[in-house]
């Protein structure tokens, strides 16, 4: 999973300059929510680079809350939800499900790591 993501990110990074000129929009990162986890639960981004976070749920309503950037979304099954996101600071930032979804709700969390460019 990790290696996969690193590869993905690499692809995205390589694609970015192209995307900008081809008007294809920022890269899309798909985040799957299900009881009681996010996949992936660790996401690495570059500071200043806009990405689209696409959320899907395979079971029930979940939420995505990333308070450090005031980003939040409802994640309904069957309704992929897209949020444009440009991290403007580096560091490690926790996100979590903020729609009470059951037994393991309190553990349903993850982390976005934003790296400085260069």
């Amino acid at each position, binding site marked *: 999973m990790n290696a996969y993501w690193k590869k993905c990110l690499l692809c995205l990074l390589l694609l970015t300059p192209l995307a900008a000129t081809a008007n294809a929009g920022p890269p899309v990162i798909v985040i799957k929510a299900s009881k009681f986890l996010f996949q992936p639960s660790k996401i690495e981004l570059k500071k200043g680079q806009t990405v689209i976070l696409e959320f899907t749920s395979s079971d029930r309503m979940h*939420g995505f*809350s990333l*308070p450090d950037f005031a980003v939040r979304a*409802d994640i309904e099954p069957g309704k992929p939800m897209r949020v444009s996101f440009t991290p403007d600071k580096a560091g490690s930032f*926790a996100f*979590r499900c*903020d*729609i*009470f979804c059951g037994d393991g709700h309190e553990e349903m*969390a993850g982390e976005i790591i934003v790296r400085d460019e260069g």
Partner: protein
Amino acid sequence: MTHLIDRRKFLHLAGIGGGVAFVSGLGFDVFAADGLTDGLDFYFVQLSDTHWGFKGEDKNPDAAGTLQKAVAAVNALDKQPDFVVFTGDLTHTTDDAQERRRRMAEFKAIVSELKVKQVKFIPGEHDASLDKGEAYQAFFGDLHYSFNHKGIHFIALDNVSDPAAQLGQAQLDWLKVDLQALAANTPIVVLTHRPLFDLYAKWDWTTRDGQQAIDLLMAFENVVVFYGHIHQEHHHVTGHIPHHAAKSLIFPLPAPGSVPKRVPIPWDSAKPYNGLGFRNIEAYPWKNYRIEEKAIIKGETL
């Protein structure tokens, strides 16, 4: 009617400090004004986050016995409170609707052993978020309500039956109407489960539209909020409104942001029931409240 504690004894207690917090936006002088509180002082007990049905040996090996000990401790209080309030998470969540009702029935049977017959309930997300409060209402009644007691207007707010942890427009409208009838100096006590203010959003210790309730309450001079959810004593002030979180009766949680993860503090067999407890809240209309934290130690109170 006699004062709950006379002033000399009160000042003595306040001087010691340990476990006794004097709570007032307006200070001692008001309390000291003779006659103002005559016949009006009383106290109630707040219990919170009992999570009946929780299992976790490392967090509370006496999960099936702590609630009964708390009930016994309240029953053992010298002078019985006017009423008792449970501020949410009465039961621990379960995806099984039948099991949820079983836990609620068991909880209700245990707390029916309280000598005090005036018992108020407020839902927590563990009770009410998965079925929008359906089972909760069948066992414990309304999700939000208000009542008057000895000159104080009590308001119970529900920030959990919506799984998105918000009060919602309908309840905010209800609150507005409820407050309309009150004079600006009416003492108001708000009882709720989650913090109404943004205590620590990273751990979801907040109510999405809680600020709207606070805004409505700001017009009143004498408002105090007692809540639960965060499983620890905590005191915070927004404007002139103090917010006091109560301890849990199942396991304590770490202080907001003090550790990377919001995970329960493990049971310490050297100090059983450490960090658990309930509180007596003495009310002195028109201005003051005094909180006394009560611990459970080997089933007895400190």
